[in-house]
């Protein structure tokens, strides 16, 4: 496969922090109308190392997709980054010039979506769409582009690529379309792949195949993954690290295996307890009472406090900040340290 170092000159490499691929610091995303700001993502910070797989889990309205879209520069109309920084290999994407950003999208950062049908151009053969990025960014000829498209389709497990390369999106099944999307996204060998619920619309058997393929292909290409989903089990399968979001904030993060085995935040625990687990058939489900706060009406203290069985007076008055404890666990809960072992009991 063809690799070039084009566009790397636009980056300012930061010698002090060479290992970090993506560094998000106190990111706030929302609507600004005059002087009033409505915050959807409220002070999110996390780092992604090269070649790792990072999951963001949350329910609808938690701000997980907004965070991802902010990284990709695809915020929906009206919303904007209010403050904070998104540093990709040292370049702050928030303040970067649009031309720099455009230069990064494709060869460096790529994104796949939940519904591939709306993300693919319905009137162009999928092969041309896969080849488009490499031809523009890597300067491939038409023939080379076609060859790369075939190769990528093979890599993503699309059967009979020679025939399918001329197919239009509507002629493919949902699973194949998602594979085409992945082939498109990875064709330029990006360093970072952003995934917004890429398997939610797929059937379980196809989901399994696509997740396996995504994992091995990212390893092969050398791309890091930022994977947004509502499904804890999918994160467990796919990601090495995860962050749990609630009402626009990260409430807990860490190694996936540790967080899921021994959650410290009551919300993470609540999510685990409320979802049926196939491997624990007899376990009773414990729903989280109440509803998440609306974006405009978040409580002043901890956003989860009104639904939390462990809340104390302190939780209603001040918002806990995300802190890392001595055993490298990161939680935003006043009662996490004191009750860490109790909660998991």
């Amino acid at each position, binding site marked *: 496969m063809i690799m070039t170092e084009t566009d790397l000159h636009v980056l300012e490499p930061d010698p002090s922090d060479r290992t970090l691929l993506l560094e998000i610091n106190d990111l706030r995303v929302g609507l600004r109308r005059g002087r009033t700001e409505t915050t959807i993502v409220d002070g999110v910070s996390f780092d992604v190392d090269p070649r790792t797989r990072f999951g963001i889990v949350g*329910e*609808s309205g938690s701000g997980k997709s907004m965070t991802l879209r902010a990284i990709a520069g695809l915020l929906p109309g009206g919303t904007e980054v209010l403050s904070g920084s998104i540093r990709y290999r040292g370049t702050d994407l928030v303040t970067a010039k649009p031309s720099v950003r455009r230069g990064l999208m494709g060869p460096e950062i790529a994104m796949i979506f939940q519904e591939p049908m709306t993300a693919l151009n319905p009137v162009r053969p999928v092969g041309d769409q896969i080849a488009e990025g490499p031809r523009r960014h890597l300067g491939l000829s038409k023939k080379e582009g076609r060859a790369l498209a075939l190769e990528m389709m093979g890599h993503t497990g699309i*059967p009979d690529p020679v025939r399918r390369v001329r197919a239009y999106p509507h002629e493919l*099944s*949902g*699973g*194949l379309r998602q594979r085409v999307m992945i082939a498109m996204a990875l064709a330029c060998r990006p360093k970072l792949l952003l995934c917004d619920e890429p398997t939610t619309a797929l*059937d*379980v*058997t*196809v*989901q*399994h*195949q696509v*997740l*396996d393929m995504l994992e091995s292909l990212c390893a092969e290409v050398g791309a890091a993954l930022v994977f947004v989903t*509502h*499904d*804890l*089990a*999918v994160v*467990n*399968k796919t990601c090495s690290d995860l962050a749990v979001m609630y009402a626009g904030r990260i409430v807990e993060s860490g190694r996936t295996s540790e967080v*899921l085995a021994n959650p410290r935040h009551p919300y993470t625990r*609540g*999510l*685990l307890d*409320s*979802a*049926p*687990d*196939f*491997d624990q*058939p007899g376990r009773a*489900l*414990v*729903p*989280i009472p109440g*509803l998440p706060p609306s974006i405009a009406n978040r409580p002043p203290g901890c956003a989860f406090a009104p639904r939390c069985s462990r809340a104390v007076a302190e939780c209603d008055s001040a918002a806990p900040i995300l802190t890392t404890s001595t055993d490298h666990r990161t939680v935003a809960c006043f009662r996490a340290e004191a009750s860490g072992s109790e909660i998991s009991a």
Partner: protein
Amino acid sequence: MTDAPVLEVDDVAKTYDVSAPLLQRLFRQQQRTLLTALDGVDLELRRGEILALVGESGSGKSTLANILVGSLPATRGQVVQDGSAIPARRDKELSRRIQMVFQDPYSSLNPRLTVRAMLSELLRVHDIVPRSEVRKECLRLVSLVGLDEDALDAYPGQFSGGQRQRIAIARALAVRPDVLIADEPVSALDVSVQATILELFASLRDELGLTILFIAHNLAVVQHLCQRVAVMYLGRIVEVAGTDEIFANPRHPYTRALIASIPRMGDTSGAADLVPEGEPPSPYDLPTGCRYHPRCPFAEAQCRELDPSLRPLSESAGRVHLSACLRASDLPESP
């Protein structure tokens, strides 16, 4: 719980004629194209149980649901309720008996009617309770689904997804149906809300003795809630058994594939080799023989020739375990 079936599906088939218009066919000399959505489905629903119907998209789950509630006519076969076949055109009383809860709680409630208006209309049309008791009955219905009285005078737009689903369930229950068909009722809801709706279904079964056909794709949910499971693949039912039995001892390779594909919370290294290659074949062009053989790791020569029917397993005496696999009894032990 008695074992008498309250609803029987007897050899129901549904084909759609998706041919081009006659003139075009004549000009281009095309054949008629038929899409087989359901191909001879037999199923029985026992009183007071929750039966899960699982399968991938295109397997015919929703088509079957639509035939059961009477919004689609079957091409062949019949639906039998309490021993008598339901005619193609249902009157008010017949349609009352089988009600449905839909997947999307945002399109299943009329945005311009209050909950009370919606419920009392049904109560009056069917004379469920005397006119004077309609108010009381409305209140009973909303409290049955875990909402309080002031929900009655609100419009659907004022509720969250989970609350809307509760209202949709109250609507279905208002006419006191014998059978409730729930078409993916929790898959549009957030995880923390799903649990409360699942509990609601369980309590309706336990307290009212309601019979529910629960269509789902999430096997963890199915395992949690349902007594029996029917697995569909390409318009056929390929395996039916009790929930514990089917997950412990699946006797159809497709069921095994489904189970192997479940994203797990525990150790993630599963029986990955059971996950099928490729995707279901097109329903326009079904394979000969067993329709799962192109993806099946256990397929033999006979599987390409013979189209197996759903048969009881010999060793499952006492408990009924049906499988439509020619090699059902000599499949390797499941991991």
